[in-house]
């Protein structure tokens, strides 16, 4: 195993001084001369026809510079892949909170006042809030023009209001169930959840007379956004420039176009740059939250505990539009059968239109939902068969040579080892603590997370200063990826990490790169950056060799210098030259400065390794109140090289606590199609006083597809948390809670039902 210098160190983040002093600029911090404030009017009804819209009173408000409705816009739909959403509602509104008009004014107060003076007459239409009901043939078709939408998966589902019906599987489930000795079936519900990044969506758009659009927005996928904006605005991509800004948390929620398309039209109509910032009421009402899911899993098991068949179904309430999903359906639903060896398996997943808020992506989309279901189902089967949930898993966990229930073949499967280490750390074999007056329980859960794929372009340069510079159009959402990428450059060029600078470019200055997300960055961006850095190293050596009067093969890099070591021909010979000096000798690079530049593009293939995450929770439940306390939590990760232990651990910890919120307290509640939890006073996320003692187990030694044999970590830790805690709760009470979140009241009900023998 090679020894690395920059890689593997807990290098502190380069952006640290800016972040701790408030100097980092986020989208809402940026201003342009002459900037106006934009605000949107939203529908109070979940389903209605717009009968009339009168903006004349709004236009008369002093300071108002533009008021627009759909009538002022081209008839064009927007979407990340499925283009099914108008920029402003056109004739019909499909969810409470849908934008129907917008105002740009000199100050926010004038804009708000103008909104109140826009007169809209609605004719209410019957709404559908339940996804299952929406699927029935008698329900109103919420998108009659669905078959004409660009990006609709083919072939069409043929089911009412279902814009995607995706199946996965292998074998023949009918045959599998015929072979089974026992059959078990359970259903589960997962709730509507918000990403709850602390920074709301914000954008600043300047539609220039030249025909260019300059855009600042807290979107972590700028090239994809550029494509979406080009498509809806009818502009060529080269005319749209996305500028970098810091992003205040993403978790999947900041990949969508949100207000940017609308903001452009306000700028166009007013002739001024326009800023739109969502307040948090609007965020909770109408951003793109995590999908709620209704899941049913049926399993056939042999008497010895081996799974032989599994049939599963998940219905996702997609909300009024599919526009906020980059892949239209949620690929993570392919994990609904779990990480087990099941010869006959089938998953049916449905994306359903309803008159609820349109959903988007959140940290490992679909997986927290389906893993809650399948891992709870796993425990319930084990209990009904009288088997230890750990042993039952071990019988069935994937091993080398197995294919997953949906036909993936991984090599180097470390599921068993990861689960064993989690269980061991949690004291699975030791007696549960017996505290009088409480119910205690333990639970396990395991899943895997593979690396995402995409494309990335990186450029690395060195000038006379000798400080390598990484150029990319890739914004850091807080994961620390910029620091890790600098470490890679430092590693390849043998310089200290703090001598590597980053230049963030706008989208006009670099080719397409996939943005942050999908656990693709360490892998895809990493390989591109390493590729560029290695190419730069080759060029440095090629340029340095003649200066050192040596053949290239004798030349290497060490501590910021190019070095020629002693050789048998010249035993006392030792020459060195600073890399800055080498660069200064090079002819001017295509960016006008003397120096050496290397570019590299990498398109990642789906890798053949995955990464397991197993977690164990211990809970105490107060039998008089149902209050659930997580007294211990273990998270075990199957990892390759850890590029930066401090950053890696930060991702693990943050993921666990998001999972904790999902498990115990977070729910966007609705009343008649309206979100009723409209502030952080109602929608509660964990505070510093709510965190459990946490142990992280790193199961090292795997070989990942990312540079230095590493694996990505960003999305794993939040996936199995709800399942591990749910299983612990089931263990404590002796009865399951099958819908999230696991509240004290639900636990109380489960305790009472079990006591009365229900």
């Amino acid at each position: 195993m090679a020894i690395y210098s920059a890689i593997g160190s807990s290098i502190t983040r380069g952006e640290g001084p800016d972040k701790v002093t408030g100097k980092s600029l986020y989208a809402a911090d940026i201003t342009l001369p002459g900037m106006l404030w934009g605000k949107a009017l939203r529908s109070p009804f979940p389903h209605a026809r717009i009968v009339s819209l009168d903006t004349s009173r709004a236009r008369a408000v002093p300071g108002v510079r533009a008021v627009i409705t759909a009538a002022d816009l081209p008839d064009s739909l927007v979407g990340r892949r499925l283009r099914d959403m108008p920029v402003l509602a056109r004739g019909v509104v499909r969810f409470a909170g849908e934008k129907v008009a917008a105002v740009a004014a000199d100050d926010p107060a004038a804009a708000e006042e103008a909104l109140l003076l826009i007169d809209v007459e609605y004719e209410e239409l019957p709404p559908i809030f339940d996804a299952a009901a929406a699927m029935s043939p008698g329900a109103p078709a919420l998108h009659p023009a669905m078959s004409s939408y660009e990006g609709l998966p083919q072939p069409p589902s043929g089911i009412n209001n279902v814009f995607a019906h995706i199946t996965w599987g292998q074998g023949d489930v009918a045959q599998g169930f015929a072979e089974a000795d026992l059959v078990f079936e359970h259903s589960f519900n997962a709730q509507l959840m918000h990403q709850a990044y602390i920074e709301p969506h914000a954008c600043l758009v300047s539609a220039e007379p030249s025909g260019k659009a300059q855009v600042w927005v807290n979107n972590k996928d700028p090239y994809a956004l550029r494509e979406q904006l080009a498509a809806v605005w009818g502009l060529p991509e080269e005319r749209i420039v996305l500028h970098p800004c810091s992003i205040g948390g993403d978790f999947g929620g900041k990949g969508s176009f949100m207000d940017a398309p609308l903001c452009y039209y306000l700028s166009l109509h007013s002739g001024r740059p326009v800023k739109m910032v969502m307040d948090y009421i609007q965020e909770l009402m109408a951003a793109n939250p995590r999908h709620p899911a209704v899941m049913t899993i049926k399993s056939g098991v042999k008497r010895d505990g081996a799974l032989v068949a599994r049939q599963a179904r998940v219905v996702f309430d997609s909300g009024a539009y599919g526009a906020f999903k980059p892949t239209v359906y949620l690929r993570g639903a392919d994990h609904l059968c779990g990480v087990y060896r099941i010869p006959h398996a089938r998953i049916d997943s449905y994306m359903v239109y309803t008159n609820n808020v349109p959903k988007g992506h959140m940290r490992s989309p679909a997986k927290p939902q389906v893993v809650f279901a399948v891992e709870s189902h796993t425990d319930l089967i084990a209990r009904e068969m009288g088997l230890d949930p750990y042993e039952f898993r071990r019988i069935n966990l994937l091993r080398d040579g197995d294919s997953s229930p949906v036909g993936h073949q991984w090599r180097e499967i470390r599921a068993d080892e990861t689960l064993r280490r989690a269980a061991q750390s949690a004291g699975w074999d030791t007696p549960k603590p017996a505290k009088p007056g409480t119910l205690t329980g333990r639970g396990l859960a395991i899943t895997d997370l593979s690396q995402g794929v995409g494309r990335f372009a990186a450029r690395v340069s060195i000038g006379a200063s000798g400080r390598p510079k990484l150029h990319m159009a890739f914004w850091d959402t807080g994961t620390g990826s910029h620091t890790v990428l600098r470490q890679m450059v430092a590693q390849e060029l043998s310089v200290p990490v703090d001598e590597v600078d980053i230049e963030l470019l706008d989208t006009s200055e670099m080719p397409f790169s996939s943005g942050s997300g999908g656990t693709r960055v360490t892998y895809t961006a990493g390989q591109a950056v390493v590729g560029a850095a290695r190419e730069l190293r080759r060029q440095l050596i090629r340029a340095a060799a003649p200066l050192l009067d040596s053949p290239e093969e004798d030349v290497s890099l060490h501590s910021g210098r190019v070095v020629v070591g002693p050789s048998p021909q010249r035993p006392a010979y030792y020459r060195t030259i600073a890399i800055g000096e080498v660069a200064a000798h090079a002819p001017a690079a295509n960016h006008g400065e003397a120096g050496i530049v290397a570019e590299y593009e990498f398109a990642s293939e789906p890798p053949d390794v995955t990464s397991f995450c197993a977690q164990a929770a211990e809970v105490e439940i107060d039998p008089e109140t149902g209050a659930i306390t997580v007294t211990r939590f273990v998270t075990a990760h199957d990892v390759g090289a850890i590029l930066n232990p401090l950053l890696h651990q930060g991702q693990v910890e943050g993921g666990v606590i998001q999972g904790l919120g999902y498990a115990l307290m977070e729910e966007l509640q609705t009343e008649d199609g309206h979100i009723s939890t409209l502030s952080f006073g109602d929608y509660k996320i964990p505070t510093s006083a709510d965190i459990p003692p946490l142990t992280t187990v790193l199961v090292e030694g795997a070989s990942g597809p990312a540079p230095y044999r590493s694996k990505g970590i960003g999305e794993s830790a939040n996936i199995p948390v709800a399942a591990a805690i749910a299983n612990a709760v089931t263990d404590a009470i002796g009865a399951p809670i099958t819908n999230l979140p696991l509240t004290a009241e639900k636990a109380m009900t489960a305790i009472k039902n079990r006591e009365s023998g229900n």
Partner: protein
Amino acid sequence: MVKLKINGTEREAQAPAQRLLLDFLRYDLGLTGAKEGCGVGVCGACTVLVDGELFASCLTLAAAIEGAEVTTIEGIADQGRLHPVQQAFIDHGGFQCGICTPGQIIAAKALLDFNPQPTEDEIKQWMMGNLCRCTGYYGIINSVAAAARNTRNNAPRQPTDD
């Protein structure tokens, strides 16, 4: 005209009565360190000090604190030298995306000014008004504890002002 002392300097700007302190700082004075998060005083991203007290600037009218001394994140470092709390947040993983960080640092500084040697529980109780979605809080608590260890001021707990 609203007049406030911000980070030791007298500042003034025309602002209507309903101008929130947060907006006064960010838009009238160009000090964008304090952030708007939840808008209802819960998340703490807008936290500043007003006459040494923790304040939610999103729930404060600028006019209502006329004449007060306001400390924002921009005033925590001493002429470019980072405060021990700021340095600790860098060294111990106290931030990730950074949006809550100005508020966290103001709150942490106020804690250590009040109680230079807080226990872990005291840190959690004090800091629970500053929400973070990235770190899971472990890094923040470690950072505050490290700053407490590193700070020179080991004076005993401050008496109250009565």
